[in-house]
């Protein structure tokens, strides 16, 4: 990895953090509607995974999708515009926070029904296997999604058909406000994959280099035709499940303890201690990310709402009139 690559990854993580912080403010001001799930604390996971992919590799995730959208290359402007429901948003204001995608960037959403995108991920991998290309589909989901039937149908199918899927559990310790031990028969999600004869690795999700390394290995393995693989990436969300979460289920001390593991702080330390970048260089990136966020908000606020006459647009690909 050269220096510029490191700085790019650091930039992505900081940009996600700034956008998420600003989103919380915009939500408080009533400018973002509906639900808003922030990615703060989990930035190293999506950034590390995307850093390891080839352009043909596809990403699909659940509703906590802003970070992955940025990593996959959707601009800050399009992300914030989507949050504000504007025509210039990546889903043209029809999707909102939970439904961001950009097919050109091989980012396939943004899915809001827990676990429902897992069978779709198997299907995407099936489509690529059928085509004979070497794409890998990366499917991210939370620990909470591993208790629903969709998970088991999708994972089983991926093994039965030897599909090129990289299953990734972002284990942030809570399914909404319910801890793993109160919702899942087993604490280690890898145990569930073992039941389907799928190999796995435990990864420190607060360490971007660890995530990237594990992902590179997994991509290589899947691309060699060995079928699905699983990464259990342990991480922590610093904010509530969504805005308006009373957080009665965890103590302040727990959050403070995890904040010592802040993935951005850790990466900063790694970069400076290994003489990859100077504090000044990183500060400059911080400022740049802040300016990009300001610009994105300005762009989004100035953007038009979708037109009423376009209400029915995009519902069907064909014209039945």
């Amino acid at each position, binding site marked *: 990895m050269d220096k510029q690559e490191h700085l790019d990854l650091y930039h992505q993580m900081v940009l996600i953090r700034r956008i998420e912080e600003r989103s919380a403010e915009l939500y408080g001001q009533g400018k973002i509607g509906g639900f808003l799930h922030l990615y703060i604390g989990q930035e190293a996971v999506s950034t590390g995974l995307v850093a390891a992919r080839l352009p043909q590799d596809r990403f699909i995730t659940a509703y906590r999708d802003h970070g992955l959208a940025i990593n996959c290359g959707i601009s800050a402007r399009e992300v914030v515009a989507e949050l504000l429901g504007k025509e210039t948003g990546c889903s043209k204001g029809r999707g909102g926070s939970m439904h961001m995608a950009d097919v050109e960037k091989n980012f396939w959403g943004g899915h809001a029904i827990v676990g429902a995108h897992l069978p779709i991920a*198997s299907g995407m991998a099936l489509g690529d296997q*059928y085509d004979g290309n070497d794409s890998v589909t990366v499917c991210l989901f939370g620990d909470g999604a591993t208790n629903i039937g969709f998970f088991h*149908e*999708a994972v089983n*199918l991926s093994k039965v058909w030897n599909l090129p899927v990289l299953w990734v559990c972002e284990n942030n310790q809570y399914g909404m406000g319910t801890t793993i031990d109160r919702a899942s028969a087993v604490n280690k999600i890898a145990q569930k994959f073992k039941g389907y004869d799928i190999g796995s690795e435990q990864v420190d999700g607060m360490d971007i280099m660890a995530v990237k390394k594990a992902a590179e290995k997994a991509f290589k393995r899947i691309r060699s035709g060995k079928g699905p693989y699983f990464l259990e990436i342990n991480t922590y969300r610093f904010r509530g499940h969504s805005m308006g979460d009373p957080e009665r289920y965890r103590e302040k001390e727990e959050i403070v303890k995890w904040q010592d593991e802040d993935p951005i702080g850790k990466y900063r330390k790694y970069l400076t201690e290994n003489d990859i970048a100077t504090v000044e260089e990183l500060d400059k990136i911080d400022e740049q990310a802040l300016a990009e966020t300001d610009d994105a908000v300005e762009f989004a606020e100035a953007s038009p709402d979708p037109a009423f006459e376009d209400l029915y647009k995009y519902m069907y*690909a*064909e014209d039945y009139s």
Partner: protein
Amino acid sequence: MARPITVREAISQALMEEMERDENVFIMGEEVGVWGGTYAVTRGFYDKFGDKRVRDTPIAEAAIIGGAIGAALVGRRPIAEMMTINFAFVAMDHIVNEAAKLQYMFGGQFKLPMVIRAVGGGGRQLGATHSQTPDAIFAHFPGLVVVAPGTPEDAKGLLKASIRSDDPVLFIEHSTLYQWRGQVPEGDYTVPIGKSKIQKPGNDVTIVTYSKMLQQSFKAAEQLSKDGIDVEIVDLRSLRPLDMDPVLESVKKTNRVVIVEEGWKSFGVGSEVSARIYEEAFDYIDAPVKRVAQKEVPLPYNAPLEQFALPQIDDIIAAVKEVKK
């Protein structure tokens, strides 16, 4: 015109021809391959196309529909089979929350060229959970295309159109219609999605119907003609998009309407069609619109009791005579 073929042969021919035409078209579902399909629609396909293009799946409907959605997203053209439409409830989220929404919700970036073939209908003593006609439920959702042909010609042409469509299409078949015979055009043809059709012209009473009840309505019309009542039959063929133009034109001519469906009357296809007739052709109606539909119980196993619950030819005849009074 070629020789008459059955609805089963028509569907089978459509699948075969489209798979030969386009390498991206493939079939996935329970027992579609080695078994040959539980209704024998895909018999011989596995030997001809192999296990890549005729894929036996686990009994896992969410994986079947979700898998088809994913394959369609990345450019393949899957035909997912629900062994019966009753099992589609297991995959309800993927049908109504994913297939029906993905194109719109992501601002038109996604295409979903997929077909869900599902067999419905009662009358075979399969009990309450395997005998339903829940077509109206699926037609309720914008974003989904729902077609339900009633003749071999339409079954073949509509299935080919569905496979070539870039939208998610639920293609509803009826389990007691597979043996029904009719003429189909020679060679390659399609029937447009979202177009109703006058299947039998007439002047006295309009029957609006589709799928299996089209055949029941033909039989009723035959008997009614002996009593001097000339029935016009409009076949909806597609439930969403719903083409009301031929219905309204017919109503304006006959001024009397009976709507016949196999599903339950409440919140059904007939409810929708009659509401639209009242909204758009109220001044042309000379008698209250009558609906013939299934009685509102889970369908019983006992054969006479099951038939009593299902709409019969005599029910159609009685309804037509009543609006003709």
